[in-house]
């Protein structure tokens, strides 16, 4: 029986994934019609390509509906509770790099570190009557990070896009978001806090623990790993 490999269905992430596999002798391709989410695999026995939204790949892996999947390590950690019990990291792929960081207004000259942020959160709550708001879509990662660091008196507000704009729009005091160059942060008058690198993300090949590995699929995985040079 074949292994289902979930790959992001479009854009740079898909192209880089195709290149990564191609460099290891496995040719992934999308069917001729660019609107059709189906593809083909050449060069590896019994591997079936499934094109999916990168954001849905963690969930499909956790449900065991795909055996392998390529997605950002940040998305797996954010979307799956106890992710290590649900998926195995087979290989970091060396592209799609992005850092999940905390940023505050650049004008906050008195805030350089998490200690400062914590102290300012206490004063902000006393002054304004509500907890300092941090806009993010990475609720689990940010909350676990701030809990481990012992930061208090903040609240997370959901922001699914244009997160850097929330401070100027007065819907948040700080943001936790993915950045690669930091340009969007600077353009929105924000700066990255020292010691607040929450996660360094990159595209990663994962295997699903709960998928059906019977009927020869486990052996197929071993063969594929050997072919991909993953020992």
């Amino acid at each position: 029986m074949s292994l289902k490999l979930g790959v992001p269905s479009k854009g740079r992430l898909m192209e880089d994934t195709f290149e990564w596999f191609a460099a290891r002798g496995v040719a992934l391709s999308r069917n001729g019609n660019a609107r059709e989410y189906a593809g083909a695999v050449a060069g590896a026995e019994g591997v079936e390509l499934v094109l999916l939204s990168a954001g849905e790949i963690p969930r499909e892996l956790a449900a065991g509906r795909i055996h392998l999947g390529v997605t950002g390590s940040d998305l797996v950690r954010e979307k799956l509770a106890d992710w290590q019990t649900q998926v195995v990291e087979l290989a970091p792929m060396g592209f799609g790099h992005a850092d999940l960081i905390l940023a505050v207004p650049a004008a906050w000259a008195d805030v350089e570190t998490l200690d400062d942020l914590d102290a300012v959160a206490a004063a902000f709550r006393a002054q304004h009557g509500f907890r300092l708001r941090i806009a993010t879509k990475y609720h689990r990662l940010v909350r676990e990070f701030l809990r481990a660091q012992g930061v208090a008196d903040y609240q997370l507000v959901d922001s699914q896009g244009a997160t850097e704009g929330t401070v100027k729009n007065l819907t948040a005091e700080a943001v936790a978001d993915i950045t690669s160059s930091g340009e969007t942060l600077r353009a929105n008058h924000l700066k990255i806090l020292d010691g607040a690198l929450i996660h360094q993300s990159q595209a990663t090949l994962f295997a699903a623990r709960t998928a059906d590995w019977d009927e020869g699929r486990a052996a197929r995985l071993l063969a594929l790993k050997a072919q991909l040079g993953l020992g």
Partner: protein
Amino acid sequence: MATKAAARAVGARLLAAFREAGALEVEADILQPAEALLDLYGEDIRARAYVTSDPLRGELMLRPDFTVPVVQAHMADGAEPARYCYFGEVFRKQEHRSARAPEFFQAGYEVFDRADPEGADAEVFALFSGLLAPLNLAASIGDIGLLMDAVRGLDTLPARRAALLRHIWRPARFQALLAHFAAPPAPSASRVALLAGSAPRAHWVGLRSSADMATRIAALRADAAAPPLPASAVAALARLFAVSAPAPQALAELEAIAHTMPAIAPAVARLARRLAALAARGVDLSRVTYQASHGLGTMEYYDGFVFSFAAPAPGLPPIASGGRYDALTAVLGQGRSIPAVGGVIRAGLVADLEGAR
């Protein structure tokens, strides 16, 4: 895992005992407004409570505990003194895989009484101790108010004391702050420049104002000018936090510490009265462990006496726990407050233990 019927049977028995002790049975809605709970507990409650939404009433939480609604009801229209009991399910998300159930039954008993706080502490503990006696549980007590008094007694800036008090429920952060105040790290070049009066100019965005920042910079200057916390004070706190012994020995140790730490003397005297009240109610104090740091790292509303009863099996949550939460009544009382103490017993776990015997 006990069946719901078994847990309900235990709950009915506990409620009967609580009513016998003079408590009025109360109910609380399962759907609670999220805002009050979030404001009280912070972001951590979002990780622990099930949040749902109502088209008209906004964000709601499935009741993560009874304490908040019971206190709210009492502060709204309760007569004094008051004793309440309740029984029902509470709901807690589990972020990690474990055998812990996301919904379980709590039977609770809460006392709102100004007259004799130590007597009320002893009343709740002795009541629980008697009900749980057949299960041979390990009883631990502590006193977060005593630790807070020790911090309030530190000879240092009020802002430093406030910062330490704010983090008393987060032990790692508390210790880091203490170390920072005792041996401040060398400031960064930009921090030195900021304190010298040269804030870099940048476009201002956001709700926090430049006046807010000026206040903080003044506080940073005061902190930089203040002498570090003496190592002896840090060592004395460490000794205090490490106390862990059968209650009578712990009291003797705390009395000895109070000689050099007068700020805790009133709290130690209250502990002596509490232990005497427990003994008068028939509690064998030699089998009760006093742990100074007990109750830290849990929900941050206990600010006095705290207790728990634990089963020997590792990995089980406490079978029963509780404590004093005077400050919570002030937060929820809109200007009024009343000393309050209470606790909960997890009826399903009691049924499990009884079934295993």
